[in-house]
Every structure is written in structure tokens, then in C-alpha cells.
């Protein structure tokens, strides 16, 4: 096992796509699990959570602004302890997951600090 600090990282995967609000295809869940396992050796299962979000890429505005309707989504919460020097690899993996899961922003917590990862087409996809 790698030595050094391992911040606890938590991220959310909404169970529906941003564009059409439909559930994901089986293949993307499988690819996420394979990617987590292949990259970090993590085999942790998710927990279901409910949260309110604004799916636009506006850092700090995850909760809806005044006058806007909140979007209530079920999500799966994953927790992995990643060596500090590899947190950027997790961010990159989550951006790829964002494209595969059709999300514009991915929510990540690293050691208790929240991050909103904007997903861009050039970030790529989870791969077979």
C-alpha cells in the first residue's frame, strides 16, 4: 500500500442524465466501477443519497438561487481514500465519468472541502 496521507474523497453520481433526465445505461455503471478498481484498487460500493442541485456549471451555486426551482436528484455517493498525490487522477476520472454519465458538473469532496468539477468534452469518457 502507498504511504503518506490519504484524504477521504467523496463524490456523487446522479442516477439520471442531465440532458433528458433518463436513467443511465448499465454499461456506464460497469465502466465506472472498473475504472475505480483499475485506477485506485477501490472496490467500495455506493450509498444512495438525495440532494438538491442546479445542474449548471456555476461553482458555488449548487443549491438553486432565489426564484429557481430546485432539482431533486437521487445520487449514489462513493467514498474512496486516495493518496494525496493522486487526487488529480481522481478529478480526471470524475470528469471522464461526467461525460459518460451526461453530467455538466461533478460534485467532489476532498478531505471535507467541496469542489465542483466542470465537465468539458475534451475530458474524454470512461473507457472499455
Amino acid at each position, binding site marked *: 500500500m502507498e504511504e503518506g496521507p490519504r484524504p477521504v474523497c467523496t463524490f456523487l453520481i446522479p442516477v439520471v442524465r442531465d440532458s433528458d433526465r433518463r436513467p443511465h*445505461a448499465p*454499461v*456506464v455503471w460497469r465502466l465506472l466501477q*472498473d475504472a475505480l*478498481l483499475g485506477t485506485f484498487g477501490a*472496490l467500495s460500493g455506493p450509498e444512495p443519497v438525495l440532494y438538491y442541485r442546479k445542474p449548471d456549471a456555476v461553482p458555488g451555486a449548487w443549491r438553486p438561487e432565489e426564484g429557481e426551482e430546485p432539482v431533486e436528484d437521487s445520487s449514489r455517493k462513493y467514498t474512496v481514500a486516495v493518496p494525496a498525490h493522486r487526487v488529480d487522477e481522481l478529478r480526471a476520472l470524475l470528469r471522464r465519468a461526467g461525460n459518460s454519465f451526461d453530467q455538466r458538473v461533478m460534485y467532489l469532496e476532498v478531505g471535507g472541502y467541496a469542489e465542483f468539477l466542470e465537465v468539458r468534452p475534451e475530458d*474524454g469518457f470512461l473507457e*472499455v
Partner: protein
Amino acid sequence: MKRRLFQTITGRALDLERLDANEREFLAAVQRRYKKEPRWSEFAAWWPKALQRSGLSAESVAYRICQDLEARLGIAQGKISAPDYRDSLADLIDERYGSRYRFCKATGTDPGHLSRILAGRSELSLQTLQRLLEQLDAALVIEPGKASTERFSRERAVRALAAAAR
């Protein structure tokens, strides 16, 4: 004698003849859990830990079986879409080539386009799909909805698991 197989939601046949005692014991525990119709995320949180506790890894056929069982629960509970051609395509690529990269290199397929298709962000023309299927030594089959629904049902997996645990 009929060979014991576990057929995944995409039709991939996983060989149950080579399971060792540890894998059989683990799958018997999975079967007991699965018969109780757990919630999708509850089962998803349980089986990776149980797999690790059993000393099994992702190399075991039990890993793929559990991923498949999880997907069936998600479909039955409305949390996951029913599989379509993308799921079968990804599985075939994995089975025959091991990675999308190797498949694209061997067949001259644009990797970016294939990734967008697998992520549901783009569609394949029928012509392109036929070309890819030829390269994968597979064929397009149209079947009644009932037949495909039966293939990815939870009940079918329970029966296959019972065979695996024997």
C-alpha cells in the same frame, strides 16, 4: 451434458464450470442475498465488500456476475435503463479485444466517436453498426421485446445463480 453458463444481460456467456470452491461459496451467499430482492444501491454496496472478504478479485467470474446482478436489480427497480445495443457492443469489445483502444486500432474505428456512442451522446448509423458487428464476428438480431425482457430479468439470474452455487 449441458454446460453450466451464466448469461449476462448483454448475452455474454460466463462459464460456471471452472468455479472453485471459494467462488461457489461466495455465489451461494450472493444467491441468498439476491433472493430477498434487495434495493439496487443496497446490493451494490454489499457485494464488493463481500467479494473482498472472500478473498476474490475482479479477475474472478464472480465479479462480472455481481455487476450483472446489480444491473438487473437497477433495471427492475427503474434506476437503470434497459440495455440496448451500446451495452452489447461494449461487452463484445471487452470480450474480443480487451479494450476500446485495441479494438479501434485493429478496426480503424474513430475512438472518440465510439466513446460518444457508448456514452449515449451520439448514434450509430445502421451501416456503421453492421460494419462494427462484422469486425466483432457478431450479428444484429431483432427479437420480441418479451424475449429480451426475460433475458435481463432478476428471476432468470436467480435460476442461473442456483446452478452456479451447486
